[in-house]
């Protein structure tokens, strides 16, 4: 009830528009999904602290190096994501380039390709064995140092991996840019570029900042990329440091990972506070009608922009995908692909022999779609509430939501095991070992992803639209369904797709939480690869990409029956 009081004191606050249960509901969800696992972790960590001398981890130089590297790579990755993602989002939603549908559709796929594959593809493309460089005769000698094994390389890969997040967060917001505002600026004499800088970009700022924040937080928590590119170069970041601590399990380990995790949480929180600073004191509400899209004509630059976008797509999508396909067709690493070596054996094995394939597909599809759709039930009320009740509480909740996403999956998974391994009180059933614990962990981990675009959509909405609905007599649910949902539909659509794509490939959370029968695709691919069956792993990855493309294509054919704007690759 502290909530209600703060809002009343605040000038300009309108009478609470939500039902009485909403605040408790949101708080309960957030407690269950975000706070409870963290509490378990801290509790175990505390015990570890007492028993071992894990506090020493804070004084080790390795920890400081890891903090510095984490900050550098996350920031670098964020910048690259923002540049690439914003370039795509702006070109696709505001200019007259051709093939928008294809470009947006394709730009979402890099998230589906496991980062290690992209890394490997790039390493191969630029390395001694590069077929391309070999043909050109400029392949570096065997064993030449790989430029990607560096802070820069990690940043670039993080940037590529998370660019679709920025793209989707931004695109939903751009859909609401007001046409007359753009026109007024042009009539003021501003060139299209100027209009873009002065009007479109600031109005799209909530989306852009949300995208940047999500890219930063994703970079802080990413394990896969620094593991592949950093470890060979002796560069460690906090998630890989945590991983190596886990390797030497001892009495103080929980203490150490709790400490290191709180460092990650602190960095993520700092980033988010920066984000809230950037957004606060600004008003992005569109007054009156909006929605008509502003098209900038690129004129003679159009071809250049189109080529640039295609080149980026080649680097982030086509090349890794080609590498993936190539390695699924040959039996082992290093075997050149030609008519003799090529075979479909791996696909045959995956599709017809491995029993786990089918169950991994079903599990991942179930988990990804339930998480994507189910999260809206939490994210929508939470975004609604946090937008209405701006202030300290909302900001704190915002950060709390973000932390599970920032933590490396393995830490979150450990936290969930600690919380749920014992049978639930009263009900006396154990979630552990069932698919449900993975689902709850996904809810916890991806709430932040789901919330971001929806939040920025709320920020832009003209409040009188909801007021008009209230005066029409529509209660909370009613106006949610009839007015608010359709208005935030583009953002909600982006959220659903985002979570679905990430969850389909998710690895580290489910890696510790799966058990017989609840294997996920990410785990299956990783295990195949880890145990030397690179051909099977690649084949399965290719199949996953194909499946996702098929699903997206299916949605595309249904586009006319879906609410306007929910498919994020459409305009």
């Amino acid at each position, binding site marked *: 009830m502290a909530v209600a009081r703060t809002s009343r004191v605040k000038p300009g606050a309108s*009478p609470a*528009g939500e039902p009485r249960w909403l605040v408790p509901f949101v708080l309960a969800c957030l407690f269950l999904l975000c706070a409870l696992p963290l509490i378990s972790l801290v509790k175990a960590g505390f015990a570890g602290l007492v028993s071992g001398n894990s506090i020493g981890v804070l004084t080790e130089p390795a920890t400081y190096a890891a903090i510095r590297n984490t900050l550098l790579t996350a920031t670098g990755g964020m910048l690259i994501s923002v540049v690439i993602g914003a370039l795509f989002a702006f070109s696709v939603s505001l200019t007259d380039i051709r093939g928008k549908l294809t470009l947006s559709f394709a730009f979402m796929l890099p998230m589906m390709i496991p980062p290690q594959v992209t890394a490997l593809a790039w390493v191969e493309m630029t390395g001694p064995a590069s077929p391309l460089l070999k043909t050109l005769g400029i392949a570096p000698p065997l064993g030449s140092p790989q430029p990607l094994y560096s802070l820069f390389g990690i940043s670039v890969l993080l940037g590529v991996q998370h660019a679709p997040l920025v793209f989707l967060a931004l695109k939903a917001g751009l859909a609401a840019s007001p046409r007359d505002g753009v026109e007024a600026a042009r009539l003021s004499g501003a060139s299209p570029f100027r209009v873009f800088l002065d009007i479109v970009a600031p109005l799209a700022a909530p989306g852009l900042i949300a995208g940047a924040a999500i890219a930063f937080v994703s970079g802080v928590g990413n394990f896969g990329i620094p593991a592949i590119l950093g470890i060979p170069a002796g560069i460690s970041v906090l998630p890989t440091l945590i991983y190596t601590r886990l390797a030497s399990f001892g009495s103080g380990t929980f203490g150490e990972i709790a400490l290191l995790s709180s460092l990650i949480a602190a960095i993520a929180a700092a980033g988010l506070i920066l984000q809230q600073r950037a957004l606060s004191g600004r008003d992005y509400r569109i007054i009156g*009608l909006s*929605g008509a899209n502003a098209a900038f004509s690129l004129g003679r630059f159009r071809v250049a922009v189109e080529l640039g976008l295609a080149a980026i797509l080649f680097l982030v999508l086509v090349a890794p995908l080609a590498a993936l396909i190539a390695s699924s067709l040959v039996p082992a690493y290093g075997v050149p692909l030609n008519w003799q070596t090529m075979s479909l054996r791996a696909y045959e094995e995956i599709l017809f022999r491995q029993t786990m394939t089918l169950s991994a597909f079903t599990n991942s599809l179930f988990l990804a779609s339930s998480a994507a759709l189910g999260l809206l039930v939490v994210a929508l009320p939470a975004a609604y509430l946090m937008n209405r009740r701006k202030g300290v509480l909302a900001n704190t909740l915002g950060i709390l939501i973000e932390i599970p996403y920032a933590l490396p999956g393995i830490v979150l998974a450990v936290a969930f095991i600690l919380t749920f391994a014992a049978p639930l009180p009263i009900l006396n059933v154990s979630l552990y070992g069932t698919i449900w614990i993975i689902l709850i962990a996904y809810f916890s981990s991806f709430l932040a992803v789901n919330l971001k675009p929806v939040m920025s959509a709320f920020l832009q909405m003209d409040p009188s639209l909801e007021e*008009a609905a209230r005066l029409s007599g529509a209660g909370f649910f009613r106006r949610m369904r009839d007015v608010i949902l359709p*208005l935030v539909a583009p953002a909600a659509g982006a959220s659903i797709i985002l979570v679905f794509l990430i969850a389909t490939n998710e690895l580290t959370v489910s890696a510790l939480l799966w058990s017989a029968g609840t294997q996920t695709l990410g785990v299956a691919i990783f295990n195949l690869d880890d145990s030397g069956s690179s051909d099977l792993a690649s084949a399965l990855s290719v199949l996953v990409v194909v499946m996702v493309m098929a699903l997206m294509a299916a949605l595309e054919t249904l586009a006319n029956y879906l609410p306007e704007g929910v498919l994020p690759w459409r305009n």
Partner: protein
Amino acid sequence: MAQLILNHLTKDFGGGRPAVSDVSLTVREGGFLALLGPSGCGKTTVLRMIAGFEQPTDGSIDYGERRLSDAARALPPEKRNMAMVFQSYALWPHMTVAENVGYPLKVRGISGETWRRKVGEALALVKLTDYAERRPAALSGGQRQRVALARCLVTSPDVVLLDEPLANLDQHLRKSMEETFRIFHERSGATMIYVTHDQSEAMALATDVAVMSEGRLVQMAPPAEIYARPEGAVVGGLIGRGSILKLPVAEHAPRALGWPRLRDAIGSAGDGLRRDVLVRPEHVRLDAEGIPLEVKACVYEGERFALTLVLPDSQALKAYGDRAIPVGQKANFSISSGWRL
């Protein structure tokens, strides 16, 4: 139906002067209140508090026995059975015109044939029958305003709040909408509160006129009274197109001043305390017996010419004329009545 009572209503947005301060008024059962006042004086804010979108920082709002809002609690808008035309229209961009208009009905569980009939009637009322299937984005400004209007009148609300509902309509549509309001008001008996800048509209429709200025209620009275006997310079200046002259009038003089007194006051030298006297242009007449005044401006208004005259002590006086008088020329005018503010 019941009285709507605003009791020491105050709203402070937190920046300097409160937007609304200490407004107390009672709208009689089924009354039609016109709310006038200069731009930014707090009219919209009062409406928003009545509708329940803003909570008063002080004071209260009651409807009959029922407390609607005070600084501590507020009945949510959806429970108030009110309707409002927003100054910014607030149409839902994702719904067609018919869906926008029919939404309050849908919420009340009305559907099928009844729904179609009622929506059809409301659209016919605002002459938008042909536009039922359009989206708001493909409408002209006035058409949007009419959709908002139709949405407001489609149900049977207890209180109807109209925030400049006719600002974007031409005169004829305006007249016919006024007629619609009048009929709606008579038929439904709803309490209506009407914010407008057009005084003839306000005068024609309202049972009471309230004038606000800088967040405060300055005067509230029936239309004829507020026009004839305004209190203070704010109301005097706002209602009608009168000129406020500073004239030396005795304190014990009656408030309504005739030509002899006015002539004396205008003629007399600058001695004595000068008081505000309101002179309406329709009371200034070309009159051979009058005093000669110079014409400073003469503007064609279609129906007539709006003249600006200069008094000997160079105060400006507005008048109407049937024909143009060249600027700079003198003519004799008399003033049939004035009102000491």
